[in-house]
Structures are given as C-alpha cells and as structure tokens.
C-alpha cells in the first residue's frame, strides 16, 4: 500500500509535466517525479525494526552478528545519495533555460513561444 502511494506521487508529477503550459510548472512536475523515485528506492531497502547502517563501538565489540541481522540495506541509500545531488544540478540547468527564454520572448507560456519567430 505504501508503494502505491509513492507511485501516486510519481503520477501526479507526470501529469503536471505533461499537461501544463507554464514552463516553471513543468520544471516543478519533474522535481516531484524525482522526489517520488528517490523515496521509492529507499523504501525498497527498509527492514522492519531495523537500525541505520552505521557501526558503533559497542556493535564491534559484541561481534557483528546482531548488527548484520538488523541493519537496513545500504546499497539503495548509496545510489539515492548521488541522485539527489544530480537532481539539483539538473534543476539549475532547467531554470537557466527558463530564465533565458523569458528574457528573449517575455513569457513563460510554451504555446506562445512556438508562434513567435524571435
């Protein structure tokens, strides 16, 4: 059921990116899709009653058996960590395109931009 709600968030972002006319709204839709995908990947690696994947001194002294049977998956967390920072870089690129287009055409509306010859 939680996976379904996460996918609902993704489809809300997809709807926004596909049907809106304002350029900034399209960028906002892409951001919502990125949040939903990162959340889904982390939810795949969760263990009920688990601990964070950081070893403490007491875990090391008592042998790693208890820690191994209770920790959550560190691999999706590693992948999502880089994905979050890349989404910031791509947001900067998209917003710079929007700002330049506004400077040239005077509007954020993408249907108007198709008609003007510039």
């Amino acid at each position: 059921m939680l996976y379904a709600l996460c996918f609902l968030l993704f489809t809300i972002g997809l709807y926004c990116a596909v049907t809106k006319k304002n350029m900034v709204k399209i960028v906002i839709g892409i951001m919502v899709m990125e949040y939903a995908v990162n959340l889904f990947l982390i939810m795949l690696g969760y263990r009920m009653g688990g601990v964070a994947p950081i070893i403490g001194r007491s875990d090391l002294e008592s042998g790693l058996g208890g820690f191994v049977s209770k920790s959550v998956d560190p691999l999706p967390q590693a992948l999502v960590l880089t994905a979050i920072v890349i989404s910031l870089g791509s947001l900067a690129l998209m917003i710079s395109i929007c700002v330049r287009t506004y400077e040239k055409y005077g509007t954020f509306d993408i249907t108007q931009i198709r008609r003007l010859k510039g």
Partner: protein
Amino acid sequence: MAVFYILLLFMIIAAIIAVETDNLLSSVICVGAIGFGGSLIFLFLRAPDIAITQIVVEVLGLIILIRATISRDRTFITGDREFFGMVVSVVIIFVIFLAGMKVFETLPAFGTPIFATVGDSASQAYITEGMQKTGAANLVASVILDFRAYDTLGEAAVLFTSIIGATVILRKKAKKLPEEPDQ
C-alpha cells in the same frame, strides 16, 4: 507504520496543491513542503545520510526556483491546453498507474528487504565485510567511495557537465564581435 502514511499523505496533498494552483509562489512553497516531508520520511526509514542531503538540497533548490519566478512580471498563466489532448493524457496516466499496481504485487512486502530473502547478494557482503575491508564505520560512505567508486566518478562528471551547461547558457557577453556576419 502510521507515521509513514501520515507523511506520505502530507506529501501527496502538497503535490496536488503545487500542481493545481495558479500562483507560482504557492507552487514553489508547496514543492518545499514536499521536500521537507520527504526528509522526515527518510529519517524514519533509517537513512540519516539521505535526510541531511535532502534537506540542504531542498533549501538550495528553493532559492534557485524563487530566483527564477518571483522577480518576473507575469506569474499568472490561465487555462490549460486543449481539451482532447488533456483527456487522452489523463487516460494514459491512469492506465500507467493501474499497470504499476500490478507490478508492485511481485515485489516483496514492505519491511522485508530483498537482500534478506536472496542467498548471497551484494548488500550482504557490504554489511558483513565493509568495516573490515575499508575501515570505515559509516557503511554508506564505504559503499559510495570504495566499493562503488566508479558511480561517484560518474556523478562528479554529470554534475560538472550540468554546471558548465548552465554557466554557458547564462553567459552575458557573446563571444563573436558584432561586426562579423553570421556564417
């Protein structure tokens, strides 16, 4: 478990408001609310690295978005695209949603990660041998900087390229002299 549902419902309501409202400032603020709820969910999902990164990236993303939207005159664009196109898009997205629901039944239930069910997976090797082979107490850092360092190199390259692209687009001076003709 109830806290996950509450936070996800908060994020979905904020997303619906961000998509539907006309005022761009409200949309940007609701995107900030989505990111903040996401950071809280990451904290409850036992991922503190990701929660720290998400919240600081959220703050910088809000600054970038507000810079693009607030100082402009036109913030209200009314109306959607033509009606037939929108109905087709909504129907297709609904079909995608139903197809996704069928796929999620094949995944293991929430709370049992995949590496606990499969015999020898990569995550099992990272957890049992990570500290001994790399000497780092933070297993996520040992994964991104020792076991999977190529992915970090790729990420550095992608970030570098996108920042260079943004800098080139936002350049003020043209590189050509004004009296040279276009080729």
